[in-house]
């Protein structure tokens, strides 16, 4: 695999300044995505997955959100210092994005054709007719039957799976280098999910792009991702190759997650579960964020935040691995 | 078009007048209307047989040449010759007969049919003579004939269409009806062939502006040329405007506090006296910016039947005396009463004053304002205890006031007081039926004194009529009944 680095995120921190205080939604996330690589981000609801993705796109609503520090290098260019107009040229053309809910992510008042054509017209210097042809082509590419008719449909005239395909087509018409997919299949049925995941894989190979896929379904990650980030309460808890993580999870949280999913092959009556729920994190939060749910915690975990520790090829944020080094 | 634009025009341009009125005319036929807005228009289009001199108040012939009274029940009226209706038909005795009979016909349902109620028969011995035979002597015949509602209409025009809506050519007056946009304006134009000489003004627009503050502003800016009946609060403003001429003239209207004689304790003279004693009329009049005059009598200074001796009658402001009288009447600690009135600006303003005044003698007054129609109904049916009213006298004759208000035959109609006194009835009838004018005036004088002493009303103030005219508009004379004529008007 080509190891050329496409995206490099370093110590990204995005905070929300809300009525209820400062929410450190993303608090020091670092990773890289190489050309052709698929990165999966998993984590519980509210752990900061979407905010990470939106930070890369610089689509954090301000106020209340703000990227407080860090750097995001895309093709060796710093995104965080770019002007709005420059950023716009990257969005949609160099980085495409699809969202969780295909039902609400398409503007209900415009035909899907218009919405795809709009993306084309912004980034490519082509006329309407040409754009329309390209849009039809894109729809055909994502497997929508009779696209020349479908292009005049409104989103509500399509099923969820079709809409998600339209979203993908829209994100891909300009052949971006990176596709960010924020829970692209969560709202879909399993059979449709399978279709969409296959489609993303096909597209990735066809266009030779990198993919960042966000999900809370470990099955999806196992299916599609080369490397994985496990997030918990705004922090990156574990980061490494997907294969390594599934065969040898390092962080107690990751282990807990894997244990709590019933699998077809598993036997036995009870599932292992992680008791408790996500903590309410504030800026002055001390210690490991997972500590009070952790089965392997020690006193230190409550007072001191563990650093990111490299174990083999992976990174993990747990005091457990400090001593081993 | 804007008044302000037209007012700048030189004299060679057509002369136009915009007159603002709070309400729209109800109709254009004198036979079918009975409101001041209609009457303002009707006076420009139609004419009566007789008219009242604006200065002296004397009744003079207008379309008539003169009259004779061979006996108390016969009126022979000679008409002027060579007068034509605006539609070209001649004005003659037939027209008079036609008009009057139409009014008398119950099917016409004329609201002022009562003006000719005593007329029995109308004869036309020749083209220019009309003979009116009455059932009973009708001493105020001439006054009635000077009433706008007895204006003569052209039979041809009336038969041809509904002159109540389109009065084109229907009168003999100096202006010809031109256009009526209901709710907005009425236009009349110069009658070039007017028998008294063509007027100088080319057209008059009667514009409806329901909001007084707006109307005043329009006169100020020149958008309108004239306005009558200005309330006191706007008077100062107009007087201070160099472009506007304000005329104030003692009028013949009266504003009063009335009682329902069928309701206790208002049948008690002492109570009524007490109430009159308790009200400081001078104080209230002082708030009117000169738009009201104190006179103790029911028949005011500008009416036929007034005599200045009345000022020694009535009851002066004297709270102690009022309390004493109330105690005498058996109400030492006062009583509760309601005061009913139509909720127009005038009465809305007086009512709280009366309430405050009567409080001083422990009469606890509840105000009961009603919308006008409801008030009429309520007062007629005798439900009101005390009520506020105003009487604007068109003919300028005291009789026009006493008969409707206090004659027992009018209980259930205009006699809101429900005053039923045979003695008073007899006197009132005399003021109507006596042909000898001097004698009749004498009866009116007596009635005034009697009714004032008996406190049939507390006359709060007698009106002052007002008119504001742009300075370049001349020749309009205000009459004490608040009316005016455009016959001699011209613009400089």
């Amino acid at each position: 695999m080509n190891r050329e680095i496409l995206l490099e995120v370093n110590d990204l921190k995005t905070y929300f300044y809300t009525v209820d205080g400062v929410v450190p939604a993303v608090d020091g996330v670092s990773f890289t995505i190489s050309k052709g690589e698929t990165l999966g981000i998993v984590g519980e609801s509210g752990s900061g997955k979407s905010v990470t993705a939106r930070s890369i796109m610089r689509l954090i609503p301000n106020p209340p959100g703000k990227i407080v520090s860090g750097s995001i290098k895309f093709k060796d260019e710093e995104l965080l210092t770019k002007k709005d107009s420059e950023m716009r040229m990257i969005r949609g053309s160099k980085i495409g994005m699809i969202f969780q809910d295909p039902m609400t992510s398409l503007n209900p008042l415009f035909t899907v054709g218009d919405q795809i054509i709009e993306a084309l017209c912004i980034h490519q210097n082509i006329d309407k007719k040409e754009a329309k042809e390209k849009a039809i082509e894109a729809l055909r590419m994502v497997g929508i039957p009779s696209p020349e008719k479908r292009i005049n449909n409104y989103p509500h005239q399509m099923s969820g799976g079709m809409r998600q395909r339209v979203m993908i087509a829209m994100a891909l018409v300009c052949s971006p280098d990176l596709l960010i997919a924020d829970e692209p299949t969560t709202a879909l049925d399993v059979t449709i999910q399978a279709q969409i995941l296959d489609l993303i894989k096909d597209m990735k190979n066809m266009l030779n792009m990198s993919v960042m896929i966000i999900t809370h379904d470990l099955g999806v990650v196992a299916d599609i991702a080369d490397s994985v980030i496990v997030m918990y309460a705004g922090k990156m808890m574990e980061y490494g190759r997907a294969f390594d993580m599934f065969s040898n999870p390092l962080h107690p949280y990751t282990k807990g997650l894997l244990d709590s999913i019933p699998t077809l092959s598993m036997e036995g009556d009870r599932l292992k579960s992680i008791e408790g729920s996500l903590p309410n994190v504030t800026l002055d939060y001390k210690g490991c964020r997972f500590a009070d749910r952790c089965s392997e915690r020690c006193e230190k975990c409550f007072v001191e935040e563990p650093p990111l520790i490299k174990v083999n090829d992976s990174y993990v944020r747990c005091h457990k691995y400090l001593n081993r080094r | 078009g804007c008044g302000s634009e037209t007012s700048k025009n030189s004299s060679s341009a057509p002369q136009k007048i915009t007159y603002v009125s709070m309400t729209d005319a109800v109709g254009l036929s004198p036979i079918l209307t009975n409101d001041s807005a209609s009457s303002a228009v009707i006076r420009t289009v139609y004419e009566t047989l007789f008219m009242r001199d604006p200065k002296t108040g004397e009744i003079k012939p207008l379309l008539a040449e003169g009259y004779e009274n061979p006996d108390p029940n016969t009126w022979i009226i000679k008409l002027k010759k060579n007068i034509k209706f605006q539609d070209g038909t001649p004005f003659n005795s037939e027209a008079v007969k036609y008009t009057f009979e139409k009014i008398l016909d119950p099917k016409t349902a004329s609201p002022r049919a009562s003006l000719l109620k005593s007329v029995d028969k109308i004869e036309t011995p020749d083209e220019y003579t009309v003979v009116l035979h009455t059932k009973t002597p009708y001493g105020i015949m001439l006054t009635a004939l000077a009433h706008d509602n007895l204006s003569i209409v052209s039979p041809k025009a009336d038969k041809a269409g509904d002159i109540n809506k389109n009065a084109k050519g229907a009168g003999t007056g100096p202006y010809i009806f031109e256009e009526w946009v209901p709710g907005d304006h009425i236009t009349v134009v110069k009658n070039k062939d007017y028998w008294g000489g063509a007027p100088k003004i080319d057209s008059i627009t009667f514009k409806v502006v329901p909001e007084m503050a707006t109307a005043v502003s329009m006169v100020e800016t020149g958008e309108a040329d004239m306005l009558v009946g200005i309330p006191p609060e706007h008077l100062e403003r107009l007087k201070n405007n160099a472009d506007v001429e304000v005329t104030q003239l003692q009028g013949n209207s009266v504003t009063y506090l009335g009682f329902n004689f069928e309701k206790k304790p208002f049948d008690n003279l002492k109570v009524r006296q007490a109430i009159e004693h308790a009200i400081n009329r001078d104080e209230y009049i002082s708030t009117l910016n000169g738009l009201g005059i104190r006179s103790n009598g029911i028949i005011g200074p500008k009416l036929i039947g007034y005599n200045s001796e009345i000022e020694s009658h009535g009851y002066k402001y004297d709270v102690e005396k009022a309390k004493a009288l109330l105690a005498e009447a058996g109400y030492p600690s006062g009583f509760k009463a309601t005061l009913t009135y139509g909720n127009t600006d005038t009465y809305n303003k007086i009512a709280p004053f009366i309430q405050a005044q009567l409080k001083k003698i422990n009469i606890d007054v509840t105000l009961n304002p009603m919308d006008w129609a409801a008030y009429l109904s309520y007062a007629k049916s005798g439900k009101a205890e005390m009520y506020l009213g105003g009487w604007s006298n068109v003919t300028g004759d005291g009789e026009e006031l006493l008969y409707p208000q206090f004659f027992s035959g009018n209980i259930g109609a205009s006699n809101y007081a429900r005053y039923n006194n045979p003695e008073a009835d007899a006197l009132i009838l005399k003021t109507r039926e006596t042909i000898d004018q001097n004698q009749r005036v004498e009866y009116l004088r007596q009635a005034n004194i009697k009714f004032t002493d008996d406190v049939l009303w507390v006359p709060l103030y007698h009106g002052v009529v007002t008119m504001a005219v742009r300075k370049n508009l001349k020749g309009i004379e205000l009459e004490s009944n608040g009316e005016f004529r455009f016959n001699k008007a011209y613009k400089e």
Partner: protein
Amino acid sequence: MSTSNEVLLEVKDLKKYFPVKKGFISKKVNYVKAVDGVSFTLRKGETLGLVGESGCGKSTTGRTILRLIEPTDGIINFDGENIVSLNKKELRKKRKDMQIIFQDPYSSLNPRLTAGEIIGRAIDVNNLAKGKERERRINELLDIVGLGARFYNRYPNEFSGGQRQRIGIARALACNPKLIVCDEPISALDVSIQAQIINLLQDIQDEFQLTYLFIAHNLAVVKHISDNIAVMYLGKIVEMADKNELFENPHHPYTKALLSAILSPNPKDKKERIKLEGDVPSPMNIPKGCRFYNRCPNKSKICSEVEPELKDMGGGHLTACHNI
């Protein structure tokens, strides 16, 4: 899990058509055939898993059985009585025996009531306890679902999704029901919380001899918790069998596709997927013949004309397919 042989619930040819107003002066011409002839039996203590794609009528089935939605047609024998023929009053009395747990932990709790009151209301409505006894019972229920009495006076918005789901379960338990319809009780929860709830549901089933109709679309979960599994497609059950039988030996092509679409959280066991083309047809105009015809990978001619019936293929394994 002990399953007796006593039948608790028997559903026969259940139908629910939602009328859709259309046309001039709103004549009811069209129907959404949400449930179109569903039959199954549930024995005491048994768990029947109901799976299927979104919109196939799972929730409608669940709710119609409780008569929260009036059925269009069919028989629901619950505890020896036909629920469908009960009048309003009788039904209200019967209600405490059959409860429901909802998918959405947010909309299923009245935000104006405290946790204790939510449970308390369930007790009050059925006059199960009063005064001290009532309080005791509420606290007991809170304990059973793993919350504890200290949560008594909290409002739903002060709870996390998992905790809310526990309150929902406590409410359902409050009137000692015999049957609980679990309408996707874990779908809205985080992975780490799902296991807690599944364990809880299993625990209370054992403790109180409950019977579950467990609706879900996650096959792995269904397999974990159920005894038998029914697969629904477009308002009909297409296959029903013991869970192991179903997973090891699926008959219906739709079941096969469904099973193959399950993603394992283990990159090692990647397997070949059966790809299904196209979408589920609209329940408003269900095609003639087999409902799965347009997506079926191995359809035959008869499929487009004759609707297959649910037949026993041996050993209580029911399938509705012509090509077996």
